[in-house]
């Protein structure tokens, strides 16, 4: 995967800090993140727990204030959330008072970008795309965790964003459902032709889904290394048993382990 001349998303020296009330000190979370994602690419971010991955995604979405550096989408700096990006949150956060269809069209409704009829047509298409045809009028509590996460993805895709931001979307699912959802996500993204940035704690998930895996260092986070995933473009679950897959897994695990150990030492002193 080579990087296209104008990346879809580019973070340049991104720095974000938060003031901690308890220790009365400013803590740097992101300490100069440089990362770019090409059009159509899926990049996963892994790193030790609490290293600021979600903060980074929030900054790309425009929800989190940036202290230094910038995030460019198609060359334009991000200042606020926009219709060109959409976030899939870890907890499905579907509105329980809305039906599946009403949840899916929520973004379109907010952005007021279509007539009501078009909006519902688009909603139905997406419900079908994520494999939930027939469940349009169900309420979220009537669905399983995996199904709710599909609705969550459909909701993010509905306003037709160019960049999809996924914050550990499968973390709350059981191992089996998670594996199926990984395959489904690749299919959905292929069909919808989207660029995506995906955060996960699962190294195998990261390798399986992405073209490249960005490993964040411990806090304050930098990009420690970007690992090219040189696996065939067509991914199936069998791939997870290939020696090359295991090598990559071991390699990335070592990188994260190094970082976790480093924080361990920092806390001890």
């Amino acid at each position, binding site marked *: 995967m080579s990087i296209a001349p104008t990346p879809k998303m580019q973070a340049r020296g991104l720095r974000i800090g938060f003031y901690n009330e308890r220790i009365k000190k400013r803590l740097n979370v992101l300490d100069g993140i440089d990362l770019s994602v090409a059009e159509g690419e899926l990049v996963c971010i892994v790193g030790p727990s609490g290293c600021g991955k979600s903060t980074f995604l929030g900054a790309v*979405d425009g*929800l989190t204030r940036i202290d230094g550096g910038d995030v460019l989408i198609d060359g334009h700096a991000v200042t*606020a*959330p*926009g*219709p060109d990006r*959409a*976030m899939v*949150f870890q*907890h499905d*956060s579907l*509105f*329980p*008072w*809305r039906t599946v269809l009403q949840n899916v069209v*929520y*973004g379109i*409704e*907010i*952005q007021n970008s279509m007539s009501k009829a078009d909006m519902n047509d688009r909603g139905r298409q997406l419900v079908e795309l994520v*494999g*939930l045809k*027939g*469940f349009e009028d169900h*309420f*979220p*509590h*009537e*669905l*399983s965790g*995996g*199904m709710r996460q599909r609705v969550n993805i459909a909701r993010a895709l509905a*306003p037709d964003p160019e960049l999809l931001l996924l914050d550990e979307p499968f973390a709350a699912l059981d191992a089996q*459902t998670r594996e*199926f*959802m990984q*395959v*489904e996500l690749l299919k959905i993204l292929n069909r919808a032709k989207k660029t995506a940035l995906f955060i996960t704690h699962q190294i195998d998930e990261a390798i399986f889904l992405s073209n490249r895996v960005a490993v964040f260092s411990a806090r304050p986070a930098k990009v420690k290394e970007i690992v090219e995933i040189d696996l065939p473009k067509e991914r199936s679950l069998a791939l997870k048993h290939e020696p090359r897959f295991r090598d990559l897994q071991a390699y990335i695990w070592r990188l994260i382990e190094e970082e976790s150990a480093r924080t361990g030492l920092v806390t001890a002193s």
Partner: protein
Amino acid sequence: MTATLNTQTTLRDETEDAAPRRSFYASNESTIIGTISVVAFLFFWEYAVAAKWVNALFTSSPLRIITAGTAMVKEGTIWQDLATSGIEFGLGFGLATIIGVPLGILMGWYRRLNAVLEPFVNALYATPRIALLPLIVIWFGIDLGSKVAIVFLSTVFPILVNTMVGIRTVERDFIKVARSFGASDRQLFMTVALPSTVPFLLTGLRLGLGHALIGIVVGEMYGATSGIGYMMAVAGATFQTDRVMVGIIIIAASGMIMTQMLKMIEMRFEKWRVDSRS
């Protein structure tokens, strides 16, 4: 795609299992047992009086209550009392809703307004509003006004406070979703804060209902010229236990009917809630 098909079939199967065909008794068991226990109690009560275990002058009895009730209907005064109490309740509760809901929403949404009003709301919410009766009678007299005022004061705080809490405790994740799609403050309010407050608001109304009934009865006993509470006070002072019991039954029944009506409204609004599905 196999995964999709599998999850779908499982869900359909579960839905069908959730509503199996059961016998009439099995599906109404608690209602049937409840009815039997009430009927048994009434029989016991009547028998205890007939067998002179207790004095009917103090305890009354189901048959005596029915006799007293029919007599009151024939005399016609009961309708006047019902109308008086009904109007007091309707006006007080209506006013409390009209004022409590919007004010609760505003206090939940605007922190500064909340800071201004919260001390008063907290103080009054903590005070039993019945304690204000002497003051209210001085201000509004012993007619309709004082009872509307006491019902209003009894009801407005539970409604206001619950609505406010509902607005304030909107789940952060929902707010993040809305903001992520670029929702404005107004949109955030209309599409997230308001709908997620509905259950709180209905709880407030239900709590208010109980307070309103207390307000009416005590208000009318304290000073009135008609009404169910007034009727009960007069009957009590003249040792007409049967008539007091009729009053109690009217109050209890109206409380239960109105609570039931509110529950039905809740079901209508909260069909998305797991626990409200019967």
